[in-house]
């Protein structure tokens, strides 16, 4: 009987955000929900979940799904060497005729998007305004709010971020560190559900989608990958996270010489 609300919760997370809770036990689910339960005045995670499940169209249900999604990211880390060495030089070449567009999909609190922006800024050609557009999206409104604020804890700015980049791109803000205006302005943060229509975003020269499809069930992951990849310009880059692969059946994406890195051969059909 007590499992039933967890099953219903799994179902809701899957339908809303393509988020799979498989592999999480009850304790882990409760741990993710308790802060929200306390804030909203519920006795525990179960009471909160039952209230959200009873009124799935209301804001509370959205916030429950938001709390269930793991939002922890770090600056730079795995994959960024590849971005610097293989993708960036190609983007520089592409930017000769028109601005290049980069999409950080599932950006959580923004470290990935800011890391991309710092690398782009380090490459002189992108210093000119309008040469490089970075869009960063996440399902979670609270994550996007935090990303936009550019505020990070001392702990966060010390894992993955070289101190010289901290000095160049951040300023102190009490106990926190805040991305300077030039860095904050270089990324356009938006709330977006990857299950929704993606066409309005336009097309991209590079899409970074890390740690997103790994937490989706296989069929939804495949569908999401093909819909995201459909937003690539011909020759555009798709960068997945550690251990993430496109399925065998996936057409017109070529493995591009690094783990999880692909290039669109031609327009990818949605």
């Amino acid at each position: 009987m007590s499992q039933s609300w967890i099953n219903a919760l799994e179902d809701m997370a899957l339908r809303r955000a393509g988020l799979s809770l498989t592999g999480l036990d009850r304790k882990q689910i409760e741990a993710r929900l308790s802060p929200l339960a306390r804030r909203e005045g519920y006795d525990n995670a179960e009471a909160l979940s039952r209230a959200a499940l009873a009124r799935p169209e209301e804001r509370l249900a959205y916030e429950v799904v938001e709390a269930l999604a793991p939002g922890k990211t770090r600056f730079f880390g795995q994959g960024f060497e590849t971005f610097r060495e293989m993708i960036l030089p190609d983007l520089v070449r592409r930017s000769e005729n028109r601005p290049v567009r980069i999409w950080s999909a599932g950006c959580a609190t923004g470290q990935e998007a800011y890391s991309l922006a710092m690398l782009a800024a380090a490459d002189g050609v992108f210093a000119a305004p309008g040469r490089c557009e970075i869009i960063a999206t996440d399902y979670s409104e609270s994550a996007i709010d935090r990303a936009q604020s550019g505020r990070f804890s001392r702990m966060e700015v010390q894992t993955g971020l070289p101190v010289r980049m901290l000095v160049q791109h951040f300023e102190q803000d009490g106990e926190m560190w805040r991305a300077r205006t030039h860095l904050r302005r270089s990324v356009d943060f938006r709330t977006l559900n990857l299950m929704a229509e993606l066409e309005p975003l336009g097309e991209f020269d590079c899409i970074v989608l890390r740690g997103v499809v790994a937490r989706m069930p296989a069929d939804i992951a495949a569908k999401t990958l093909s819909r995201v990849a459909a937003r690539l310009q011909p020759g555009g880059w798709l960068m997945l996270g550690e251990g993430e692969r496109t399925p065998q059946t996936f057409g017109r994406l070529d493995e591009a010489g690094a783990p999880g890195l692909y290039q669109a051969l031609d327009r990818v059909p949605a």
Partner: protein
Amino acid sequence: MMTCLLVDDSRVIRKVARRILEDLDFECREAADGSEALKACRQDMPDLILLDWNMPVMNGLDFLKTLRKEPSGEAPKVVFCTTENDMAHITEALRHGADEYIMKPFDSDIIASKLAEVGLVEAA
């Protein structure tokens, strides 16, 4: 095996840092202030120096300035590890040849990340 010199006037901090660095396969020596550290470096230059700022006798910054003028004093990677958590201290440390900067409190994740930045351990 890589070598590390831990420079801090707190024995507790040295012990905590030592445990983390030994887990990362560093052979560690300890010094309680800048002048002890200088002696240790003249004896045998380490690959890495984890350096506190405020210490009696000779502070971390004075040690760093002296070290960088010593024979082979440019060789070690110097990572400050201090409660001086403001931009002014960080930029001053970098100007005098520090390679990285850790703001206390630290943990093994931060140390591993900073050592990856200076190229002494594989990136996580």
